[in-house]
Structures are given as C-alpha cells and as structure tokens.
C-alpha cells in the first residue's frame, strides 16, 4: 500500500470509530429517552449548582515543567530521524547527538537550579 492509501485507511478508521459511537447512541436512544426532572442536571458538587463559576482561569501550577516540556518535545522531533540512521552513521552520530543532548540536559539542570521543577 502506498502511504496515501494508508493514511486514507487511518482516516477511514477514525470515521468508522465515530460511526460506531453514533450507532451506540442510536441503540441507547431506541431504549427510551431521558426524563427531565428537577435537579437531575446539576453537576456533582454538593447537590446544588456551584456558587462560583467553574469556567474560570485556572492556575496551572506546573507551568515551569510545561515550558521545559516544549523544549524537550521539539528536541524529540530531531531525535527520530537521527535514531533511524544512527547505526549507519556511527560514531559521528553519537557525538553529534551527545553534544546536543548535553546542552539540553544542562538546560534541564539549570531549570532545576532555578526552581522550575517545582509546584509554583
């Protein structure tokens, strides 16, 4: 199969899965509908609607990790092609990536020393 056909198949799988879910919903619908009753639609907190809104800005206390994560995630994009040709290229590949990873690791250590790896 050509790559295009493979991705078409994967797209088909995604659509088929969504179709499967829709089919389950239709089966459930055929058993009966939801009866509207008071207080049935309150999200689970304390039996009442929460006093303060839930959809608010949320303090993401791990943002230090998140920023470092971006750097590491970008780096992984370079690692995959490198990993595939690693054995072919040999020692040069090890040294190249060694320097790259060492710099990145120093970044991690620096972040650690500056208390980035802590719940803020």
């Amino acid at each position, binding site marked *: *199969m050509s*790559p295009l056909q*493979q991705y078409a*198949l*994967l797209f088909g*799988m*995604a659509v088929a*899965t*969504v179709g*499967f*879910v829709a089919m*389950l*919903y239709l*089966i*459930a619908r055929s*058993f*009966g509908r*939801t*009866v509207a009753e008071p207080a*049935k*639609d*309150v*999200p*689970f*907190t304390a039996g009442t*609607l*929460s006093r303060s809104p*839930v*959809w608010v800005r*949320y303090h*993401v*206390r*791990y943002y230090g*990790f*998140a920023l*470092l*994560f971006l750097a*590491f*995630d970008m780096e*992984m994009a370079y*690692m*995959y092609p490198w*990993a*595939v*040709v*690693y*054995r*072919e290229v*040999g*020692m040069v590949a*090890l040294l190249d*990536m*060694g320097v790259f*990873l060492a710099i990145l*690791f120093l970044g*991690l250590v620096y972040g*650690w020393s500056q208390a980035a*790896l*802590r*719940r803020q």
Partner: protein
Amino acid sequence: MTLVAYLLLVFVGAYVVAVVEEWSTSGRLRPTAPLLHGLALLARESLTPRRHDRNLFEAGPTLLLVAAVLALVALPLAPGLLPVELATGALWLNAALVYVAVALLMAGWGPDGAYAMVGGFRFVGQFIGYAMLIVMPVTAVAMRAESLATIAVVESQAPLWNVLAQPLGFVLFLVAAMAVCFLPPFDQPVAAAELAGGVFGEYTGVRLVVVRLGRLVLVLTLALSVTVLFLGGWLGPWLPPAVWSLLKTLAVVLVMLSVGRYLPRLRTDWALEWGWKLGIPLALVNILWVGVVLLVGPA
C-alpha cells in the same frame, strides 16, 4: 480481510481486559459481567449537565476511543496481521496517544463541573510528566531497529528482546504506559475517593459506555505496544505468532492492572517531579547506553 480479523481480535482483547480489570479490583472472575454491565448502561438514562459545553462534552469520550483505536492499528499482532503498515509506525503511536490528554481535558472542561475540571487539568500535568518517558524509550528502540516501522522493530528483537537489551527503557515505558491509561497509582484525573469520578463523573448511560470502552482499548493499546516494542512481539517458539502476541499482551495487562493496587495514589506534582528529576535523566542514560552498545557490540 486482515483488518476484519484484527478488529475481531481487538474486540475480544478489549473484552478480556474488562474481565481482568474487574478481577483485579474485586477479586471475582465473572466472564459475562462486562457484557451485562454494558447492556445495562445502554438502557440507562444518559444525563447532561445543565450548562455543559456541548461540543467538548460529546467529543471527549469519542476522541478517547478514536485516539486509542488509531494508536492500536499501527501495532502488529503477527507478520501478516497489521492493518496499516506505516513506515513511521512508532512515531504514529506517539502522535495518536497525545490525543488522550486532549480528550481528557475536553471531557473535564465540557460538563462545567468543578471536580471534572480539576481532574482534566490534573491529567494535563500528568501528561507533561510522562510524555517524555513514552517518546525517549521509543527512540532507543528505533535506534536498535534502524526503522520506525513496527514490523522492523519486532524483527530487530530476534537475537535478544529489548526488555533484556534495554531494561531501563522497558521499566520507564511500562510506568509511563500506566500513566497514559490513568491506571492506579496514576489515577489522579478519575480518583474515585476524592474527585467523585473526576473527569468522567458527569458521564452516564451510553456516554459512560463509550468512556469505558475507550479506556479498555487504551489499556489494550498500551499493553500491546509494550509487547511490540520490548517483549519481542510475536516472536516465540511452537505457538502461532498471533497467539504469542496475545499471551504477552495479556501478561502485560495483568501487570499494569494489578501493580497499582499495592501503591498509594501519586499526586500530580509528585508524578511531575519524579518524571523530570529521575525519569528523564534515566531515559537519556538509556539512549546513551543503547547508542554505545550498538557501536561496540555485535552488528
């Protein structure tokens, strides 16, 4: 034809995971329980919270199932039993698994419930902790296989399985795999005892069926990926290849589901700190170790 056979095996596999999951939590082995529970849930009411964000609320469970299925079809059960032979199979696995975090965040935001929201954001934090521990061991596996194709990855393990060649990577990947499936001790987003169901607390009836199904396929996907990447996939004597894959996957499922019962729940910030201060340095050591062994070792 391959696809149909594969999907049938996957369906059976997901069912077995459901049976094992109940056994690992309640200690009772009831082969018909998942079927009966599923049918009962289908017939129950599926409530929607008052002010839910409809798109996110509906998309969360579906996306969880779609992500699990898409990750799964890139993994081979046997040489001929692989629906999509991607040249970048290992990368595709990572890409599909990222959407688990998206799905859980959507499901957390959607219902406008405080507990669900907290669970969703907890899982994003956990994702930042485990993501690198998924990607880096896979890189080391690709280095040995000289390919990202999952078939080539299994074939590269014919002399020695990766679990023995790269034991460090295996342990890191297995722990991260449990975190992807939010199994205990990484069950922060759905923590029953403190968040009342957390992310999926507002899902009832048929929507809960989809959630549970997504979770089961996800566990199966991660167990199969551990098998393919580290336990030699279908390799093994006497039995047919597909049987070997399924047996090893079942063993991994048993480990993943039972280990967490003996550990306390891990707080998100602890998971993050352990992941970054211990996990990532170890993963880098693993890559270095594999690199040196590949250069000096036998070809």
